Each structure stands twice: as C-alpha cells, then as structure tokens.
C-alpha cells in the first residue's frame, strides 16, 4: 500500500507526464518529500518557505488541508492526495 498523489496537468512535467504518483509518509510533508525524491522539483511548486503556496489547494481524502493542519495533515496508506492549483487571476 501507499499514498496516491494526483498531479495536475501543469505539474506533470515533473512526473514524466504521469497523472498520479505514489509515496509514503505519516504527514503530507513526508509524502511530498518522498515523491520529490523521485520527481525532483515537484515539491518546490507546491511548497514555499515550508508552507503551502497560496494558489495551490491540497486535499487529503476530500479534506482541504488548510483546515486540517496544512503540511502537518496526517496521511496513511490508501489515502488519496489531490493537488489542485487555484484558478485565479485579475
């Protein structure tokens, strides 16, 4: 078992075009570190200065992590993490 991380189109250049990658970790932070080891540069597009980037939304099993601990949100085998860039502009 592992944790599935769904990757948006704009970040698939870091995953060889894959729509999802798999990682392990007890927190979102650990999962992102784990997948970044095999997909270098991916984490930098999601995290800046150790916090989630303002225009990236992340869900762990349908829960917006901004309301469940941010990078410290708990993760476990079988969880699904969705990375969803905000659609925004001026």
């Amino acid at each position, binding site marked *: 078992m592992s944790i599935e991380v769904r990757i948006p*189109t704009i970040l698939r250049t870091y995953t060889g075009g894959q729509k999802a990658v798999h990682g392990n970790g007890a927190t979102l932070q650990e999962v992102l570190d784990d997948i970044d080891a095999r997909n270098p540069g991916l984490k930098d597009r999601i995290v800046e200065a150790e916090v989630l980037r303002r225009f990236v939304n992340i*869900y762990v099993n349908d829960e917006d992590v901004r309301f469940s601990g941010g990078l410290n949100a708990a993760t476990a085998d079988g969880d699904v993490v969705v990375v969803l860039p*905000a*659609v*925004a*502009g001026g």
Partner: protein
Amino acid sequence: MAPSVTAVLKIAREHVDAMIVHAREDHPDEACGVVIGPEGSDVPTRLVRMINAERSPTFFRFEPQEQFTLYKEMSTTGEEIVVVYHSHTATEAYPSRTDISLASEPQAHYMIVSTAGSDASEGPVSVRSFRIVDGAVTEEEIHITE
C-alpha cells in the same frame, strides 16, 4: 512559403452568450467560470459558472470547495476544463499580469469578457481568447458555431 498556423477556438454561440450574461450580472465585480468538455477533445460542451470567492472588481479566484467538487465530477466523467473565462470590468479583454502569473491550466483557452465599455445592462462588450503557457500569451481567433 509554408502556410502560417493560426490558433482557433471553436465554441458554441450559446456559451459565449452565457459568459456575457454572467459578466453583466456580476459587473462591476469580475465573473468567472469554465466550459468543460471531454478530456483531450478540445471541444467545450458545458458551461459551469463558478463563484468568484474574491467578489472583487480587480481579482477572481474560484471558490476552492466548488472547484474541488467540479474536479471530482470531471474525474468521474472523463472531462476537463477546455475554457476558463472571466471578466474584466474596467480594463480591456487582455490578460493582466496577474492572469499570466497565475495561469495554471496549460490545456485551456483563456477567454476574457470586458464590460469596461458598458455596464451591467447594455452597451458594448468585447470577448477575446488566449493561450497562456509558461508566461507566454498567444491570442487566438474565436470561431463561433451556431
């Protein structure tokens, strides 16, 4: 000389009309939404209005929970965002610096409706379409189908 390739967005008149209605309704705040279609088809088939969580005349952001619900729906149906639209209520229908820096859907056509020359009811509007990829803006023709 090789013929030049011109990018074209094909979109139904009903969808363009619906964007204009939406932009007028929300004027002077920016309106926003999408037209979704089958993944990889580049055919926009269904317009979905999105809530502008910013409720601002100079900024828009899809309400995150609503965007996530749409994402899950599209994952199930095999659809994707084909067009992202929003309005400019005081400036021309051209991507702002913010639009360019935040553009996150490289497969999408970015349509902008400007209500700057009108108001919430009548008056001229302009509608233009762009690709925004890696900070580069390319305008494309809009081919309206009946």
